[in-house]
């Protein structure tokens, strides 16, 4: 590979990069330069265009305009092959692995030597052994990807890049799915790579990681690059301000809770997935009226299953009672309709796949899940579409949904406004219990504030709320009590006033006692 | 202007429908006239085709295959001035004076080729592949078996039908597989009365080096040296005569037999080497006896039984 160590100070330079997806201008005239042998952070709100920019650099998307320089040389990168040839490797936010292939097969895919597999696999096995020693990247080369933990899958992605002799490594939100401990391990690896002279671009939402790991940091906002600064010259507060364009008040204003009687009581709740693997391993908890119970945890530790089981989306075993009345967990009466009738509303974690029918108009979505509600019926046979449209107009006004057009299809609203439609629908049902998952994922600061206020208002109205979020900040600021989930179990219950991120992080990694840290599961 | 409707096997089945086509062509050549023709593709089309032709003024409308008789019975009432011909079918002439039904004495022709088969067989086993399993086709098989038994009382007779629907007229793959199966059971002369399916039978017989017997048209030329003879059913004559009479068609039902040259067997240069003079003499003698009434071949359709075979 014809790359020689020129005197160029920059490993990567992007000049005037722009990219639009249909009407969405994801990147606008972006300029950035990454010095060789540094770790360069990129931060920005959801949808700011970070992933798009990196995908362009990796040849996954094609920029509408702009220029890429690698090692000082203008290098067109029309496809990933060119990026690989230019020494760029990327670990995507969503891993690009073939699930039923072995580690080895995934590593050689696209980088085979010759038409027959034997030689490629043999060589890869050797290289893998060397890399494992050099960087502490151990994985079983013959394991199937689907059998590996997320952390190990990520290692495979890094190994893939290193196997292709990448000098520049891009990582897109690598720690979103990792426990704090796994994340620490990752950063040790990254530092090792940096010491070998590799250049690393790191996308993350976590300002702590930026401050700890990077040399420089670039901030993106709504498709533009607003600043690039040396990390040691900046502060988290300044970065946050740069990100959203104004001073941010992260604290939620709320009065102390006044918990009443137990609304929801869960005993020994268990859920198996379609492969028969137990994802929820005996969860028990109570939620009282006028209380927000926050569930903290790394994504994939059973929070989704907990919401799904309570919301009637999946079969479960154990017992749950709502206001003292037991609810069936499988068979008739265990579906989402029955739960809604019982007084449970549910803002799902994934609004695109669950909360909305994207091809339906806003007014049709306002009935979604409540289509059997008598207030939307004209007669035994027909629905009252006029009433529904009127109701939608009212909700859109209250929740400041923009644009306030009931006939607009859901897919044509931005993420924040879509979320407002879902929240409006569920909160306005005035339920006894509100299940709410990732309420502000992909939602901008303004909308976050609004949604948080609604949640608190519902609590103050004496309702019970179960809040699931991967954002520790959100959990800490909203919850009246915090339960931490790990590996399908509740690791502990904490009072937000008397705990901190460190303690919660330990629990999230499966460590119960803070003194004698004992791993429940093979960590990173 | 007359019209001709072919049955589901299709105009170029080299057999039944093609015989009809040949008759029409002969009429066209001799008179310089033109005729309309339609090939049926499925059952439900029949009535529309009849109506459309009648509507457009075709007369007479000649049809092949028994499947046409029921639609004709319906349509002919709406077009009393149009003459219809159903070849192989039957429509009550009392109720439908404008319909001519033409039938054939297939058992007589089949008897002759059955004799020839038995005389040509070296294995002592001859066989029959029928198209759709209906009395009409069983009549072929029964006549054939009677002839074979007459020529050789010890002859072993095998019979298979292709199917129970009109699709059985057009399934050469099944035809050839049945032929191969019959060969495996010892047969070395196979009579195919199966429309387009028969082409597969004749092909397989040629491939396997045994003899076959064609049907309806003269099929000797298809595999010279392998087709022993063909049982002729003069559909061409029926069509020719009907077209020739034109609008003045006489609708008294006809039964064409050996005596009236409506059935027979084919001799030409393609099978001359296969048929010895002795064989031909024996067959011709039997033919004379049938014509004179001295020999009566049992017609399966009269009582739905066959004296020498079961199906």
């Amino acid at each position: 590979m014809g790359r020689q160590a020129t005197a160029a100070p920059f490993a990567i330079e992007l000049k005037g990069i722009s990219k639009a997806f249909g009407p969405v201008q994801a990147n606008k005239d972006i300029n950035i330069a990454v010095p060789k042998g540094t770790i360069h952070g990129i931060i920005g709100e959801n949808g700011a265009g970070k992933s798009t920019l990196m995908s362009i650099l990796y040849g996954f998307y094609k920029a509408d305009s702009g220029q890429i320089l690698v090692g000082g040389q203008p290098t067109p990168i029309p496809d990933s092959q060119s990026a690989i040839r230019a020494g760029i490797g990327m670990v995507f936010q969503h891993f690009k692995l073939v699930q039923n292939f072995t580690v080895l097969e995934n590593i050689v895919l696209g980088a085979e030597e010759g038409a027959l597999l034997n030689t490629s696999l043999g060589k890869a096995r050797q290289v893998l052994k060397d890399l494992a020693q050099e960087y502490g990247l151990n994985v079983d080369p013959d394991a199937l990807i689907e059998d590996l933990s997320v952390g190990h899958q990520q290692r495979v992605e890094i190994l893939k890049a290193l196997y292709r002799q990448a000098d520049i490594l891009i990582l897109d939100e690598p720690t979103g799915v990792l426990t704090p401990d796994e994340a620490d391990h990752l950063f040790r690896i990254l530092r090792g790579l940096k010491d070998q002279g590799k250049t690393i671009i790191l996308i993350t939402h976590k300002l702590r990681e930026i401050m700890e790991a990077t040399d420089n940091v670039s901030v993106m906002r709504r498709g533009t690059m607003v600043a690039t600064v040396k990390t040691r010259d900046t502060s988290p507060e300044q970065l946050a301000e740069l990100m959203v364009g104004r001073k941010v008040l992260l604290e939620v204003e709320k009065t102390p809770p006044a918990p009443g009687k137990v609304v929801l009581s869960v005993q020994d709740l268990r859920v198996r997935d379609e492969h028969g693997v137990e994802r929820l391993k005996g969860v028990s908890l109570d939620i009282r009226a006028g209380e927000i119970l926050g569930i903290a945890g790394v994504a994939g530790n059973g929070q989704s299953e907990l919401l799904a089981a309570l919301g009637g989306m999946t079969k479960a075993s154990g017992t749950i009672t709502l206001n003292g009345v037991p609810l069936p967990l499988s068979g008739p009466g265990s579906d989402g309709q029955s739960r809604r009738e019982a007084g449970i509303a549910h803002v799902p974690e994934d609004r695109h796949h669950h909360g909305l029918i994207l091809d339906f108009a806003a007014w049709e979505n306002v009935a979604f899940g409540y289509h059997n509600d008598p207030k939307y019926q004209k007669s035994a046979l027909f629905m009252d579409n006029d009433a529904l449209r009127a109701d939608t107009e009212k909700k859109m006004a209250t929740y400041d949904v923009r644009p306030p057009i009931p006939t607009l299809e859901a897919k044509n609203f931005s993420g924040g406004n879509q979320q407002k439609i879902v929240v409006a629908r569920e909160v306005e049902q005035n339920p006894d219990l509100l299940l709410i998952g990732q309420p502000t994922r992909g939602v901008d600061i303004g909308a976050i504030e609004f949604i948080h206020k609604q949640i608190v208002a519902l609590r103050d109205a004496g309702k019970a709320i179960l809040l699931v979020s991967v954002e520790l900040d959100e959990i800490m600021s909203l919850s009246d009590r915090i339960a931490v989930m790990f590996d399908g179990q509740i690791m502990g219950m904490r009072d937000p006033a008397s705990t901190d991120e460190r303690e919660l992080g330990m629990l999230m990694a499966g460590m119960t006692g803070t003194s004698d840290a004992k791993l429940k599961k093979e960590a990173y | 202007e007359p019209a001709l409707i072919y049955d589901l096997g299709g105009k170029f089945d080299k057999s039944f429908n093609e015989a009809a086509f040949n008759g029409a062509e002969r009429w066209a050549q001799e008179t310089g006239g033109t005729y309309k023709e339609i090939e049926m593709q499925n059952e439900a089309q029949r009535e529309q085709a009849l109506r459309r032709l009648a509507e457009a003024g075709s007369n007479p409308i000649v049809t092949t295959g028994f499947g046409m008789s029921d639609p004709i019975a319906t349509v002919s009432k709406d077009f009393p001035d149009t003459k219809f011909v159903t070849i192989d079918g039957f429509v009550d002439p009392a109720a439908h004076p404008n319909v001519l039904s033409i039938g054939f004495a297939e058992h007589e022709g089949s008897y002759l080729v059955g004799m020839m088969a038995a005389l040509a067989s070296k294995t002592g086993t001859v066989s029959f592949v029928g198209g759709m399993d209906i009395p009409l086709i069983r009549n072929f098989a029964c006549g054939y078996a009677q002839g074979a038994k007459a020529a050789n009382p010890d002859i072993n007779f095998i019979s298979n039908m292709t199917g129970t629907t009109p699709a059985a007229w057009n399934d050469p793959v099944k035809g050839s597989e049945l032929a191969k199966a019959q060969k495996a059971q010892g047969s070395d002369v196979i009579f195919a009365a199966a429309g387009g399916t028969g082409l597969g039978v004749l092909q397989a017989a040629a491939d396997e080096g045994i003899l076959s017997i064609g049907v309806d048209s003269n099929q000797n030329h298809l595999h010279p040296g392998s087709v022993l003879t063909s049982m002729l059913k003069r559909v061409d004559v029926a069509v020719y005569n009907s077209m020739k009479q034109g609008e003045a068609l006489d609708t008294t039902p006809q039964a064409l037999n050996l005596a009236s040259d409506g059935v027979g067997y084919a001799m030409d240069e393609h099978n001359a080497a296969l048929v010895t003079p002795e064989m031909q003499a024996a067959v011709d003698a039997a033919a004379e006896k049938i014509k004179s009434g001295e020999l009566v071949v049992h017609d399966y359709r009269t009582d739905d039984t066959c004296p020498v075979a079961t199906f």
Partner: protein
Amino acid sequence: MDRLPRWADLTLVPLVSLLFAAVISALVLLSIGQSPTEALKVMIDGALGSPYGWGYTLYYATSFIFTGLAVTVAFHAGLFNIGGEGQAQIGGLGVALVCLSLPWPHWTVALAAATAGAALFGAAWAAIPAYLQAKRGSHIVITTIMFNYIAAALMVYVLVDVLRPTGQMDPASARFPVGAQLPALNDIPGFSLIFQRPVPANITLLIALAMAVVVWALLWRTRLGYQIRAFGKSEAAAKYAGINPVRITIIAMLISGGLAGMMSINNVMGEAERLLQNSSEGAGFIGIAVALMGRNHPFGVVLAALLFGFLYQGGAELGLWTSIPIEMRIVVQGLVILFTGALDMMVRMILERLFALVRSAKAVRAA
């Protein structure tokens, strides 16, 4: 690139797709040495040029409305029902059994009973693929294709061994009694002014039109329709909303199969007046093209059914009066499905380009 305006998406896309299909059909005709204009003339003449032609065009259109609606309902539930053919044939069996079972006093009574029979049998034939899809995840496209073949075999057995009157050679049922014979359009006051001679189009046409309205109301005005559409758009979301996937899959397929079965009142009871082999004549498959062309909207389906009725009757006329084989209509049908169903992105992209051009031209003029 900007999206197409909604009106263009609804009208221009199918029309342009149709145009593509027409152009390619013309090329096919030219390549086999036939004149497309001559062919078109024969088709228009034969299908629309006389009450006789209309009688057939409307007759076929009636069948296609039913099968098109059948495909539409399934489609809204996210199910691709290719089994209309088999469901229609089995529906025909239902019609025949009803019609032959009693000496019906009047056609109205017979019609009501036969409609129920047709819908019931058609629905029953759709029930097994539906159940297998819902419960066992068997791909409905393949199971319904298989059920078409199985239906054909079953019909052979029934017609040959059960329903065939003794002495009859062709595989068909006996004729239906007089009390079970439906009035054709020429028997209906008003219509009889136009149709003075017997035509195959019959009272079922009105039922078909009524069903189009019923299906429209079902899909867009009732709770069931809401659930069907929601399920069809997103199965995961339906589950969240507590819409039972098994229930909706089965109900939608039962309605779909019932509609497909109901087409048999048109051809079996209204026209042939006995049950024949292959009675549906491919209408089940044409329903796919009709639904795609009609953009899965009942009113679109009615228009598309008329178009296909024209193509079908016109195609028959081609087979009759020209040397163009009747298979031409299958080619046209395939082309329409291809362009409206599979190459719709291509058509849309072309239109988007055109719209962008027009827009920029306007912008230039404005500036």
